[in-house]
């Protein structure tokens, strides 16, 4: 690695830029509120009582710290690197998404907002949002592409049980990006009382940095836990990337340790040589959508393309701007895994470790499967097991031709 840059952890600048990426590309109606969120976040960050409250819920409600687990059988199976899982799938509601829901909803409450909206993302963000809104007694509305209603049916029911209003979105391509558009439209119409939860490290500044900071608890814990277990920090990190929040959360505390090799794994869907994938870095180019400049899947005319992945949580045509910057600077290496590879990793992990992973981290595991065998046995690899697979069993059963 080159050391022309002193630190990879200083971004974004005061205008929300990571290099040329990021920014605040939103309609004027939202701009005053975005500035208000930024101010509130700056104040909350420096307020010990906010941190205390956050830690309280992390510990007693989410169940943090999540364990760092040595995956012995997978390690033996691949015969190389020592594989550790950072087990954020054991969090309440089954994924890392709850970390940011707690953070953002506490912030919304501080700002006096009385209503929460979100897109559902893989369903898990919707569930986590509905969960924390139930806990803190705030009404919430969750937008979900009508295309996802079916493959997320159990999550839709969960959200409703938790008291959320679920709104199917039938516009554009009826997918996640359209649900995000619809949530933004709701926000524009209700800025005065409403807080918009963005589920990943994307959107207008300050969201990418704020979401990263909430998720960085993952990397900070992993760092301490690895030192406790092995006496040193890991040699490599692997995480899957939809928008990139679980990955940023794991990576960020290690960006300035040049000896740590970092891999982000995008979804290659049916293959990068098809038009059915979700790999914005490997298959896209810079553009502006949803409030930030980043790598996007788009056609020759700058129209945004629909992404494809078997994993609903990776099925997004963009990626957080900080990843776009880390990609161009070369600090993180971005690779991809196909639907098929993820399905294989999903089954392998279930059988060998007794952990049914979500399809999202199955992509990360697919890359681990590729590299682990060639790494030395004293190599410490930490993979973010960012979600559990209960939500995915129907999708997987269908892909494997099993009737439930």
């Amino acid at each position, binding site marked *: 690695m080159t050391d022309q840059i002193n630190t990879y952890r200083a971004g974004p600048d005061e205008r929300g830029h990571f290099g040329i990426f990021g920014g605040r*590309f939103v309609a004027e*109606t939202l*701009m005053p509120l975005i500035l208000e969120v930024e101010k509130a976040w700056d104040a909350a960050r420096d307020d010990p009582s906010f941190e205390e409250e956050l830690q309280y819920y992390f510990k007693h409600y989410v169940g943090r710290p999540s364990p760092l687990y040595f995956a012995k059988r997978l390690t033996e199976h691949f015969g190389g690197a020592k594989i550790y899982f950072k087990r954020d799938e054991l969090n309440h509601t089954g994924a890392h998404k709850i970390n940011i829901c707690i953070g953002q909803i506490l912030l919304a409450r501080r700002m006096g907002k009385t209503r929460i909206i979100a897109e559902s993302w893989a369903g898990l963000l919707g569930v986590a949002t509905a969960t924390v809104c139930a806990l803190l007694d705030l009404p919430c509305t969750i937008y979900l592409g009508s295309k996802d209603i079916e493959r997320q049916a159990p999550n839709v029911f969960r959200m409703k049980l938790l008291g959320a209003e679920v709104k199917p979105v039938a516009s554009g391509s009826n997918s996640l990006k359209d649900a995000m*558009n619809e949530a933004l*439209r709701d926000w524009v119409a*209700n800025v005065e009382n409403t807080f918009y939860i963005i589920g990943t490290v994307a959107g207008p500044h300050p969201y990418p940095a704020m979401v990263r900071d909430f998720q960085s608890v993952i990397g900070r814990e992993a760092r301490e836990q690895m030192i406790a277990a092995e006496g040193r920090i890991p040699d490599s990190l692997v995480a899957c990337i939809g928008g990139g929040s679980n990955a940023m959360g794991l990576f960020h505390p290690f960006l300035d340790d040049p000896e740590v090799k970092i891999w982000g794994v995008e979804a290659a869907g049916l293959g990068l040589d098809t038009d059915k994938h979700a790999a914005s870095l490997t298959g896209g180019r810079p*553009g502006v959508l949803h*409030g930030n400049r980043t790598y996007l899947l788009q056609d020759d005319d700058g129209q945004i393309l629909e992404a494809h992945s078997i994993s609903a949580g990776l099925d997004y045509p963009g990626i957080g701007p900080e990843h776009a910057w880390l990609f161009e600077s070369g600090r993180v290496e971005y690779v991809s895994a196909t639907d098929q590879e993820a399905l294989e990793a999903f089954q392998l992990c279930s059988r060998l470790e007794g952990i049914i992973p979500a399809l999202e981290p199955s992509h990360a595991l697919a890359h681990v499967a590729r590299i682990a065998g060639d790494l030395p046995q004293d190599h410490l690899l930490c993979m973010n097991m960012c979600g559990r697979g209960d939500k995915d069993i129907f999708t997987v059963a269908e892909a494997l031709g099993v009737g439930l």
Partner: protein
Amino acid sequence: MSAAQDSGRIRRRFEALKEEGRGGLVTFVTAGDPDYETSREIVLGLPAAGADVIELGMPFSDPMADGPVVQAASQRALRAGMKLAKCLELVREFRAHDDDTPIVLMGYYNPIYNYGVDRFLADALAAGVDGLIVVDLPPEEDEELCLPSLKAGMNFIRLATPTTDDVRLPVVLSNTSGFVYYVSVMGITGTKSATEDAVRAAVERLRRHTDLPIGVGFGIKTPDAARAVAAVADAAVVGSAIVDRIVAGLDADGAPAPGLAGKVHDYVRELAAEVRSREESV
């Protein structure tokens, strides 16, 4: 900053309206909706039907500030093969017939960024575009397109909204040229409507901050409402209500039925007649 001379069409048009003693009618349709040929017929006939300024939507796959009507217009245009370059082609064809009516392109940044800002400005100016409204470029991102536009002689028309308070308003107005577009409701196009009192108060507030003409839009749904707005502002912008007439002219398969453009023009004539009547409603 050294700014090039702009086309002057917007300024001349608003001066002429002032002399006539009336507010203007700004019409919005999406370029290429429902297809290029029909759209061309619609746009070319707008001045004769009474449009004082033409706002042309550049279709985008993800129009975050638009309601269902304009979203669907974008989708129809894209499905029919509309591209940014073809929007400029449409303007060029229009200019061959009409050298006076200002044309303002409205849309989102990504297609322009993708086309290349400098190349886009050069091609748009050559085609006869007078101004740009780009929804997702607030003053915080002026370096992207606003400053290059002003430098190249392209008007950059900014949106001011009910959430733009008095502290922020000067920031929003600072690099605005041509006219100011006041979004009279908090929300997306074609949904809510503002009350006349709210519009009047907003226009008065804006006038305390700027000498630029003020157009008011989002949520003007009837000729009556257009008249009321044009009586207090310098122009009323009508979009979704006109696009509704395009939808009404589609057959069961979504293809334009004969006479579609004429029906759109009839409706614009109704709007124009009301706007020209100049009466404030009760």
